[in-house]
């Protein structure tokens, strides 16, 4: 187990290093000129050239990478070109906020879709199964800006039940913060429900039809125990792998949801950095998101190992 974790940690460090190299190598290919983007289309060209020089944007990518790496090793992640503020606190603050949203969404979503998946699988083809499958698919097929706007119109403007902006005012209590997060969490849950639900449902159906389940039932175990100990243990790993893979998107890819609900997280920061060629900010965001993505997959794999004794034993052997 320990060796497994150590190997994965080394792999993670290599992934992050590779991601940072890629960002520096590819940024030169992005369209536009950072000095021009900051000063605007009508600034004189010599002002743009001077700013590019000040920012170091006129130096070759390899040289900038070495300087950046030297800074990071000293704990200095550089300054954002466009915002003119240090990268590290900005990225850390946004990452924390994104993790709160993603965490809340997963806490609601995973138990809900697993429970629904098990319930639907036990009565395969029944009315509940059909209703959940159709409804989940229909809602999941809508893009998030449609679902989100509908939620805002219904619960924010029409019923006036929930705040439409996800960021609570400074000094708000925990309950108020939670109320502000309800709509974006609902939007994300609606979006991903069908995915996780179908995955669970299919795995549970397969596990229910297996020999070990039949043996367990014939052995005289109560149904509750069969589901928990035999069916779920075998059916959950694929669902968890999918949920782990979604974590990267939930943290780094929520540009639309963050913009719509005015919840600036790392997704919109990443988007801004890429469209504005803000290299120090971009690489900071990419490292943060890649790190979360890799850790999410690592957590899913570890959970899988906990659920599946074969994996544990294979590793120990």
């Amino acid at each position, binding site marked *: 187990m320990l060796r497994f974790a150590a190997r994965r940690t080394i792999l993670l460090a290599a992934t992050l290093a590779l991601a940072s190299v890629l960002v520096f190598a590819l940024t030169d290919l992005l*369209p*536009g*000129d950072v*000095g*021009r*983007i*900051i*000063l*605007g*289309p*009508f*600034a*004189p*060209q*010599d*002002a*743009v050239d*001077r*700013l590019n020089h*000040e920012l170091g944007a006129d130096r070759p990518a390899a040289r900038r990478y070495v300087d950046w790496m030297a800074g990071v090793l000293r704990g200095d992640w550089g300054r*954002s070109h*466009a*915002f*003119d*503020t240090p990268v590290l606190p*900005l990225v850390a603050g946004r990452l924390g906020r994104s993790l709160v949203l993603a965490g809340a969404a997963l806490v609601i979503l995973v138990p809900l879709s697993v429970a629904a998946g098990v319930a639907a699988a036990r009565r395969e083809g029944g009315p509940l199964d059909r209703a959940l499958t159709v409804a989940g698919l229909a809602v999941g097929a809508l893009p998030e800006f449609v679902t989100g*706007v509908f939620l*805002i*119109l219904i619960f*924010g*403007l029409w019923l*006036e039940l929930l*705040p*439409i*902006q996800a*960021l609570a005012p400074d000094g708000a209590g925990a309950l108020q913060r939670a109320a502000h997060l309800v709509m974006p969490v609902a939007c994300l849950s609606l979006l991903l429900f069908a995915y996780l639900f179908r995955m669970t449902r299919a795995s549970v159906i397969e596990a229910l039809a297996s020999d070990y389940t039949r043996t367990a039932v014939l052995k005289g175990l109560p149904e509750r125990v069969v589901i928990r100990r035999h069916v779920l243990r075998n059916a959950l790993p694929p669902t968890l792998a999918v949920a782990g893979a979604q974590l990267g998107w939930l943290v780094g890819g929520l540009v639309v949801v963050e*913009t*719509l*609900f*005015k919840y*600036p997280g790392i997704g*919109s*920061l990443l988007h*801004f950095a890429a*469209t*504005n*060629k803000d290299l120090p900010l971009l690489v900071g965001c990419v490292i943060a998101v890649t790190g979360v993505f890799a850790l999410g997959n690592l957590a899913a794999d570890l959970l899988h190992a906990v659920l599946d004794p074969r994996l544990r034993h294979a590793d120990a052997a």
Partner: protein
Amino acid sequence: MEARGSALSRLLAEHAAGRLSRRGLLKAAAGLGIFLAAGPLGRPALAQGTPQGTPKRGGTLKIAAPPATTIDPVKLNSPGAIGIVQQVAEYLVYAEPDLSLRPVLATRWEPSEGGRVWTFELRRDVRFHDGRPMTAADVVASFRRLVDPESASPAAGALSFLKPDGVTAVDDHTVRFALDRPIGDFPYFTHIYNAVILPADYAGNFAEKPVGTGPFRLVSYRPQEGAVFERNPDYWDQPKPYLDRVEIQLHETPQPQILALQSGAVQVVQQLTWLDARPVVDDAGLVLIEAESGDHRQLAMRTDMAPFDDVRVRRAVALCFDRAAMVEGLLGGRASVGNDHPIAPIYPERIDLAQRSPDIEQARALLAEAGYPDGFEVDLHTHQLLELPRHAALAQQMLAPAGIRVNLKVEPSNLYYGHWTEVPMGLTEWTSRPVPALILAQSFRSDAEWNAAHWKNQRFDDLLARFEAETDLGKRSATGTEIAALMNEEVPAVIAYFVRTLRAARGEVKGLEASMSNYLDLSGTWLDA
């Protein structure tokens, strides 16, 4: 039917240009057998601001604004950053929506040497937020900083006639600007958005140490999120400001701003386009205010390259545009028709020039004369901003009957700005400048960096020099008319309309004005809660 349609659009154009009264238009249209519904013409009169009333003190005003990049006043260029900085720091003068000048940090100004030297007298007893008095030294340092090549300010382009040592302090409360050439309208140039007055020792760290003389103090600023301000109790213009607190939220896209306004999460949307303003018009609890502006779009044609090196081809292009239809279709009528020169009706100069009307037959004849009887094919570049993509698509349709086959290249903004002065035909947005000379100089002077048409015309340059230097409005109008006529004849760019800038507010917001440059002055704004 087609003939009748184009006759109607000509009438609409005449009406929009102000040469045909509304009644005259309705009568003439009826003569064509067309009965116009009062709808498109019977709009409520333009509301320039929310009601003034007797101000009440207190309250927090929340504003949704477009995105901001750096908020360093010397470098800033984004509309969100302009709104943030304008609460904290102030200009020497402020141009009102009707373009009259209100004294702010300067109380008096006068030209000498025929407009080459300008002397500004400063307001006394003005203090910066850190308690220090504002003096001539601060004003001198603020302007030197803008034109110093070391500081890489976008303002240097607009103030090209000012050298750092041209700004000097005469005494503690008098500043002298010695310009390279006479500029008749110089006070307006002290109102460009970078030209706020900062302490002489300002070190480029506005986000960390925001010090100005403005009505509000910056309490906190978070990139991409917003800024919080509190009332400056020592503001020089008592009893202003009336609000206790201001919060500016930065938004990447328009839709969440409108939703926030409807739900009451914000009370003002700083700026929006007609496309996004529909829900505001339909909601009785919301107010849409608008300001005439010099904002326009230039469809520039490379005059140094075939086919646009022939003036007949450029004139043919201009004849294809049905400007009245564009104003209706693209901007819901909230614009005035343009005549291929940038001296908008908002400016005090009166331009006396016949409006160009669409005429496809003549356009075809001109193209044939120029050697393109079957038309030609051309790439039109523009970018994803405002109504530009739809404007370009409409241009494509309107040029087709003359045989001009347009390939649309709609690009992301950052890509377009990288090569917009090189493309054969480019559609670019130009925001309002306080004086028309500034736009003329930046986009059409032979040596201008942003002369996208590559138009070199000695007569234009001479006229512009006279226009810039003239301090008398009557003479400036006459020169302006000559410039407009020359541009209308030469068509370096098609300028189809001048838009109005829009701003939306909830009913309880009073004393808020729209602004031709989308500036945000909240010193007189109050809440009727």
